[in-house]
């Protein structure tokens, strides 16, 4: 794209910004269903530049030719894609006056998680007093970032303000042709985050969507792009431990990470979408494509996830290890209870010489849930001395749940070393009695044992996240034994 084009684009986008973005969007919603018109409507609503509309349309046309995958170990009713509203203007949620108006069950969970009162209000949409000015916190945060030249904003803002960066990197890690849900997301994505760390910058703060202005209600088709230039570093946190409810059942997100020479990106997720009730009614279907590319030499991408929510989870965060000596890591705890189903794992594609990957997956199944690990380790011909170590452990609570492991290994290079370890264990009655005999009641004992089991993964989380994640694991499994 030429500089001139850029200027023109900037001009258009900025001038459009002047006109009330806010004034006319109050109740506007696209009609149900998905056609090219829907795509054009979304793009127009978001006042997107032409390249974005084209990208969406290409993705949509491709999606129409695709079949929904059915290889996952998941069982859910057929999704009617024409029965979904793909664009609803981000309307202001009705603010509640006090916490008394919030669902007591939700408050109970907040308290168990140790979430502060102010935070509870923010999460449940209660007006926050002027004293706790969260906006000023955010502003300070943004000031610090811009001092370092770091861009951290909503994806749609990036499309307007940094179209050249978006255009350069969007779809390069997860092309719209990648899979059914990625194509769908590429066609209709609502919003998400954009993050750019310039050359040589070590981001001084943990980036969390919490601090991003406009972060609320990014919707069901979230899209995130993180670019780390040479020798930069960033730690990014997605989600929160508080239970997230959403009236949209289908979620299909994309996260793309690009790490250039010597860059390092650490991406941590705590996913706690509504899992449905005890019988599996309601609950989010979560189909996510997360992938990073270690494009430069010595680059590193590390995924850490704690998955406790959603009725259906379909998610395989992976790394394309293209740079020589690049490193990919995946640490995961996936908990399923009641009727939840998770099919999750990682993909590590070794292309660069001496590239290294580690997969540590800890599945915990309780109730009548099904928990599957599915992973691919692929070593291509030129990946001399590639190394992978995978460890997939399953912990079962009770005898009506299922744990499954589907590891795929493909190696085209004889110098590679690939190790795979797997274990399956149960919390034994003897362990519980031992804890009970020391005065520890069964629920706390399960929390203790489960956290011990997941420790290797929890240790990878940023401190403030780790403490909450520990409590979350315990709460998720409450009532699952006995």
């Amino acid at each position, binding site marked *: 794209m030429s500089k001139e084009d850029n200027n023109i684009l900037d001009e258009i986008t900025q001038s459009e910004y002047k006109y009330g973005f806010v004034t006319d969007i109050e109740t506007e919603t696209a009609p149900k269903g998905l056609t090219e018109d829907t795509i054009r409507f979304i793009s127009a609503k978001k006042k997107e530049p032409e390249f974005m509309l084209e990208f969406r349309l290409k993705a949509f046309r491709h999606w129409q030719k695709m079949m929904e995958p059915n290889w996952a170990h998941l069982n859910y009713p057929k999704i009617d894609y024409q029965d979904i509203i793909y664009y609803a203007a981000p309307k202001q949620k009705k603010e509640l006056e006090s916490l008394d108006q919030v669902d007591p069950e939700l408050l109970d969970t907040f308290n168990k998680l140790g979430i502060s009162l102010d935070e509870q209000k923010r999460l449940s949409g209660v007006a926050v007093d002027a004293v706790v000015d969260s906006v000023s916190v955010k502003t300070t945060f943004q000031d610090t970032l811009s001092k370092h030249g770091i861009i951290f904003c909503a994806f749609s803002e990036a499309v307007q303000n940094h179209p050249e960066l978006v255009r350069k990197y969007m779809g390069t890690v997860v092309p719209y042709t990648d899979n059914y849900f990625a194509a769908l997301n590429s066609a209709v994505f609502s919003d998400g985050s954009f993050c750019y760390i310039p050359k040589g910058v070590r981001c001084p703060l943990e980036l969390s969507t919490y601090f991003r202005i406009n972060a609320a209600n990014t919707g069901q088709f979230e899209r995130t792009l993180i670019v780390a230039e040479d020798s930069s570093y960033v730690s990014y946190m997605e989600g929160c431990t508080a239970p997230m409810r959403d009236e949209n059942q289908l979620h299909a997100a994309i996260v793309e990470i690009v790490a250039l020479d010597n860059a390092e990106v650490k991406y941590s997720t705590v996913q706690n979408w509504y899992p449905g009730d005890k019988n599996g009614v309601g609950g989010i279907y979560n189909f996510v494509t997360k992938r990073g590319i270690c494009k430069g030499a010595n680059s590193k991408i590390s995924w850490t996830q704690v998955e406790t929510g959603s009725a259906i989870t379909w998610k395989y965060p992976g790394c394309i290890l293209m740079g020589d000596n690049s490193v990919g890591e995946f640490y995961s705890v996936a908990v399923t209870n009641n009727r939840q189903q998770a099919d999750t794992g990682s993909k590590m594609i070794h292309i660069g010489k001496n590239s290294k990957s580690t997969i540590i997956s800890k599945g915990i199944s309780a109730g009548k849930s099904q928990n599957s690990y599915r992973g691919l380790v692929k070593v291509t011909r030129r990946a001399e001395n590639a190394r992978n170590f995978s460890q997939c452990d399953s912990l079962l609570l009770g005898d009506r749940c299922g744990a499954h492991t589907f590891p795929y290994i493909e190696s085209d290079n004889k110098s590679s070393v690939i190790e795979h370890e797997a274990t399956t264990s149960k919390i034994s009655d*003897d362990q519980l009695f031992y*804890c009970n*005999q*020391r*005065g*520890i009641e069964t629920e706390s004992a399960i929390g203790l044992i489960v956290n*011990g*089991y997941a420790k290797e993964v929890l240790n990878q989380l940023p401190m403030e996240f780790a403490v909450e994640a520990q409590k979350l694991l315990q709460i998720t499994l409450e009532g699952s034994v006995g």
Partner: protein
Amino acid sequence: MLLNIKDLHVSIDGKEIIKGLNLGVNYGEVHAIMGPNGTGKSTLAAAIAGKEGYEITQGEIIYNGKDIMEFAAEDRAREGIFLSFQYPVEIPGVSMTNFMRTAVNEHRAYHNLGPIPAAEFLKKMEEKKKLVEIHSKLTSRSVNEGFSGGEKKKNEIFQMAILEPKLSILDETDSGLDIDALRTVANGVNMLKTEENAFVIITHYQRLLEHVVPDFVHVLYDGRIVKSGGKGLAFELEEKGYDWIKKEFEEA
């Protein structure tokens, strides 16, 4: 009386193991329960501690003036009953420190006390580690994981020292211990013994009893206490074995 067991019958899966057992333990006493394998010694310990699946079909267990038969295992523990396990289980990933802090705090909560301050807890850990001569590295490791047999048993005594129970039941704590570990365990018990607590030591051999002198020795056979006596009885058993007891019992 700290513990008063009257006509206790315990079944596991419908099979009666304890068949009418009586035992009284006063504050400040050490009782030894001896007997051949498979006579119900460990069943008695588990039944007092409240393990699930151990059904009390008859009789009663009065502890510290309370009928504890309806108490959950954790509440019995919080009331001051401690069981040193014959086979302590491993809990991977849970550090001894974290485990004990959780235990101490749940005890305190039961007695309406707030969580123990961190400094106080660490001081206590250090103190008790010395008492049972436990390697300080053991407490940073996961509960019993990779511990040797002797370390596991010492660790039981260490936990007992931290929790300061009123009634401690040692279920074959001496089995499989070398002489040094045995002495450490014995020293631990002797140091913790006061006029406000009591010990029930279940053992096969009298060698632990050379170091911890019991006030009473009972012989358990076929789910009943068939003989009781002073510490001399332990030596007699060591010398003559259990056969004469069996014979005596069967003749009667």
